[in-house]
């Protein structure tokens, strides 16, 4: 089965390039922001330069101490700090605005795309993972860009400017500093690999741990019914311990790596002082033109080096996580939405009962064997058809193709003579309604759930619809009537009641083709019969296709389609089909009767 593109094949640069294409806001005005970043970085060298100037010209100038110079230099430096501070403010502000706007767009695009993905994709990919792609993954990118990314730009800028200033003072000392940091830079790749592997392991382990921790909550009844508390606890303890080990290991690498920056800094300081003194004294160089102030300014410049290198290392790890997150989000957008809405160019279905036609339809899940083979049938407008067959026979696939939750691999499905792929999505969803087995409810009132497909419907209309379906008593029995809250996923209601809400929804939507896929499997038989009779009235003005295990529905239908092994094997009225000795339908009916008769 196909899955959502994980994006894992995407290279780092390619990821960023694609990511920027999906969120153009990220790079709008980027050059101004970078220019501001350069100005802001310059602020970092103001103090070292001021120290050097003060020592060399203020204290040890040609004419002795010069207080006036120091004051002038100080005022100039203050101005420089103010300007670069403002640049830093403007840069951060622009960066936050651009990245948050860009990522909000990316989030919305990805969210929308998930809904446009074919359902079969959604069922193979775990929904939780899809949720995290539009939530925490985007957060990770955002956090990285505005914190890490910002720091990274500033850090690199700082290192470059420090290098330039050092080289202006003395290229030899600049070289000494770079040589002292050499081993660190050289080991960067090695540590990056280690860190990245260690944090990947942490994430994986945390996932396993969270899954174990959820068991005593989600599976509370089973754990208690089978008294497997100690086994469950042992599993949790093992995962918790493994998580702790993985976290500690990753932290060990981080700490070691982090300490290297300080070591290099110490080495560089010693090198600068020693080599600087030697250079200044002319031992190493013929022209001893280095001043004491310059040597000391280097010590400050070295500290400008240590910070960025340390934060830079942390950032590189975050960067890898962020790029991985970005890949996953892009992966969603790269997964093709098979069901393309023809939009404005598409056809609009006329109102009134629809004719249905399957023309040599074959369907196979990607990489799988066909579940429907060359199915052809036509239904006249307004008929009530029942589709029966064993589990796995392909009858639910017919429902999904009919409502365009999937497109056929071969062949054409037509409504009112129009290829479904040519029908505008809004028209299709207005004319065709599927009532699925699991009537999912949103955490809201019952009324809000019933009018989900028709937000303009009033409470009175809902109550009227309930009356038509014979559900007025049930509605009245609820504590707050239509204003009753249904809870998360509708769990305050029973499974049967959730199905009733789904039926009410369909009644209110007034479709021209009604598809019921095991829509009443969880209500008790008496209630089902009551709805069944109401549904019959409801079906009179439209075409309806009912898929049910309970053959009672088939008995009441105008026509029955019997599906077996992905083919239509029988077709006709209940009474005719049952007469066909040894047929699939006769067998299904016999086992149905066995259940009823006992």
């Amino acid at each position, binding site marked *: 089965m196909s899955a959502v593109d994980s994006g894992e094949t995407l290279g780092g640069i390619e990821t960023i390039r694609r990511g920027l294409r999906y969120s153009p806001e990220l790079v709008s005005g980027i050059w101004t922001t970078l220019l501001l970043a350069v100005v802001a970085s310059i602020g970092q060298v103001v103090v070292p330069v001021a120290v050097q100037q003060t020592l060399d010209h203020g204290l040890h100038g040609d004419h002795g101490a010069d207080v006036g110079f120091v004051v002038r230099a100080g005022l100039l430096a203050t101005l420089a700090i103010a300007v670069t*501070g403002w640049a*830093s403010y403007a840069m951060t502000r622009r960066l936050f605005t651009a990245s948050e706007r860009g990522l909000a767009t990316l989030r919305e695009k990805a969210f929308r795309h998930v809904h446009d993905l074919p359902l079969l994709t959604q069922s193979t990919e775990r929904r939780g993972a899809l949720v995290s792609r539009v939530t925490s993954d985007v957060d990770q990118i955002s956090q990285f860009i505005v914190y890490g990314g910002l720091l990274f730009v500033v850090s690199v800028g700082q290192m470059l400017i420090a290098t330039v200033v050092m080289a202006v003072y003395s290229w030899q000392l600049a070289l000494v500093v770079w040589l002292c940091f050499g081993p660190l830079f050289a080991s960067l790749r090695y540590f990056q690999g280690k860190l990245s592997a260690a944090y990947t392991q942490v994430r994986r382990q945390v996932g396993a741990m969270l899954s174990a921790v959820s068991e005593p909550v989600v599976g509370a009844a089973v754990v208690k019914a089978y*008294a497997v508390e100690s086994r469950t606890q042992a599993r949790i303890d093992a995962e918790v311990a493994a998580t702790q080990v993985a976290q500690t290991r990753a932290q060990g690498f981080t700490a070691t790596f*982090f300490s290297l920056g300080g070591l290099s800094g110490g080495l560089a300081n010693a090198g600068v002082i020693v080599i600087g003194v030697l250079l200044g004294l002319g031992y190493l160089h013929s022209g001893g033109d280095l001043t004491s102030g310059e040597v000391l300014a280097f010590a400050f410049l070295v500290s400008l080096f240590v910070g960025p290198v340390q934060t830079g290392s942390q950032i590189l790890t975050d960067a890898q996580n962020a790029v991985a997150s970005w890949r996953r989000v892009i992966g969603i957008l790269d997964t093709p939405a098979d069901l393309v809405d023809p939009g404005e160019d598409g056809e609009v279905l006329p109102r009134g009962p629809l004719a249905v036609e399957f023309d040599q339809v074959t369907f196979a899940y990607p990489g799988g064997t066909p579940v429907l083979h060359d199915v052809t049938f036509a239904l006249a407008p307004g008929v009530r058809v029942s589709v029966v067959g064993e589990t796995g026979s392909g009858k639910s696939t017919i429902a999904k193709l009919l409502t365009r939750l999937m497109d056929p691999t071969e062949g054409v499905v037509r409504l009112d003579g129009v290829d479904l792929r040519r029908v505008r999505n809004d028209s299709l969803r207005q004319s065709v309604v599927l009532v699925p087995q699991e009537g999912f409810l949103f955490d809201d009132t019952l009324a809000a759930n019933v009018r989900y497909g028709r937000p303009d419907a009033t409470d009175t209309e809902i109550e009227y619809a309930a009356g038509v379906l014979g559900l007025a008593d049930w509605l009245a029995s609820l504590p707050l009537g239509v204003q009753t809250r249904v809870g998360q996923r509708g769990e305050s209601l029973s499974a049967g009641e959730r199905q009733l809400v789904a039926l009410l929804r369909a009644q209110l939507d007034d479709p021209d083709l009604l598809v019921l896929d095991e829509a009443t499997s969880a209500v008790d038989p008496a209630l089902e019969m009551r709805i069944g009779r109401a549904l019959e009235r409801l079906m009179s003005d439209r075409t309806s296709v009912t898929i049910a295990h309970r053959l009672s529905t088939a008995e009441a239908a105008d026509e029955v389609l019997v599906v077996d092994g992905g083919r239509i094997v029988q077709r006709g009225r209940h009474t005719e089909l049952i007469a066909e000795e040894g047929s699939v339908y006769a067998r299904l009916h016999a086992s149905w009767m*066995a259940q009823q008769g006992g």
Partner: protein
Amino acid sequence: MGVTAARRASTTDGFGVLWVAIKREPWVFTLSTLGSALFGALTVADAWVLGWSTNHVVLPAFRDGHIGTGWLLAVVGLFVGVAILRAVGVIARRLGAGVMQYRMQAHYRRAVTRKYLELPLAWHHRHPTGELLSNANSDVEAAWAPIAPLPMAVGTVAMMVIAIVQMFLADLVLACVGLLVFPAVIATNLVYQRFSSPLMTRAQQLRAELSGVAHESFDGALVVKTLGRESEETDRFAVTARELRDVNIRAGRLRAAFDPTLAALPQLGVLVVLAVGVLRVVHGGALAGDVVQVAYLLTIVAFPIRSLGWLLGEFPRSVVGFTRVQAVLDSTGRMPYGEGAAARSASGAAVAVEGVGYTYPGSSGAPLLRQVDFTVAPGRTVALVGATAAGKSTLTTLLARLVDPDHGRITLDGTDLRDFAQGELAGVTALVPQTAFLFDDTVRDNVTLGLQVSDDEVWAALRTAQADGFVAALPDGLDTRLGERGTSLSGGQRQRISLARALIRHPRLLVLDDATSAVDPEVEQRILTALRAGVASSGTTLVVVAYRKATIALADEVVHLENGRILDRGTHVDLLARDASYARLVNAYEQTDETTEGMSA
């Protein structure tokens, strides 16, 4: 604790939470704090080394035109020595903080889950699943988040103290100037925290909301799609996403303003120190090295002061998280157990339900069960029949003692269920619920749940549950891992695995709560046939919630429940004859048959 109260008290409470961690892990805390203090002291020492080098090496060398090798070696030795010790401090601090944080998380995750396992199901019912999961996950994480910056903060305080002493030793006047910088940085930080923490909290709430919307929307994808509501769903998501964006941008603007301010304060301090320092040097009050040293101290200490801000910033979330976790740990109510042992014979158990009443905890509504009385003789099968919400499922949870009745009692072989020792009842009873829960584990382990049995027995149980066919077709057979919550199987397949889990235990009392509702009739028929044969040979007592006549037909006796009461009990035939509402319920299909036939005739 109210929101406003939480903010006021959070700093004290935050330290209170940290104190819990320090008491729990005193050695790791001491180690990491010593590491941090070492780091802080040596960072300051670095400035001292620089000042010393300036006064004893750099300035004399440039003044005199020569310098002894010994002095140069001393410079190298001092700088490198300090750097190495500082590296040791860094490792001790960071690793120590990590170890302490991870240990506390582990302690509390174990404690919370232990509590979950101990608390009765009634307690679980009162708390939403999402809340319990976040108590064990994000709340534990939030509670111990301040541990990460803790040693750094402690070290920073140490460093500040040392730096201040150093500055005073170097030059009194310069030190006073420098001293103005630290409070200014701390004050700016506090102001920043005050303005930013409501934004951070709001962003956190919005992230949770966003995740909730996405979860719900993707869970309901089928409904969204079939009703063509994708755009409206995207709008719903976008409203929260955009609010989050705006809050983040506002937080960004705040940061944009505070970051340069915080950076500028020590920079300006250095400039003032330089200006004042030059005057002091000119008047002979200070040495150039002292000026350099004080300036350097300001530069290096100013940045770590921010770690105090990080620490305080984590407090509000930490206190909220800890309070929630503590509420779970303080929950009382564990199911009381007696001393009784349940006989593990092969014969069926005798069950008696005596005057049982049950009301859903915390609900003011009508009782779910009232005065329920019936008995099941060993080896007999009883069907519980009733309309939706009649109380059938509740009765099954009482029979397996997932909850205790408010009134009356239930006995097994004459012993009140509450008198059995822990695990005894579960050893002889198995309940198969309507919604199957599968563990994130292999098929085998999902069936055995740790029971020591051979694969043949597993296959036998799967065969009775009609699950052997699809399990054999799974890529790794019994070793196939069933994903988180077993999502890779259909509802009917999950129910059959869940049924096999009960059957392999050869329970003396088997309770099926509409356990085959998602299985199609043909397969269900085969399951019932196999079950009937199995029950007949082992003598298992069977209580089954049933809708279909075929299932009811398994039963020796039918208990007809309506609105939490037993309306009637007896054989299916007797009830059909004398209980009109029973007849209506079970004959619903046949009535339609007659109607349909009447219509077509």
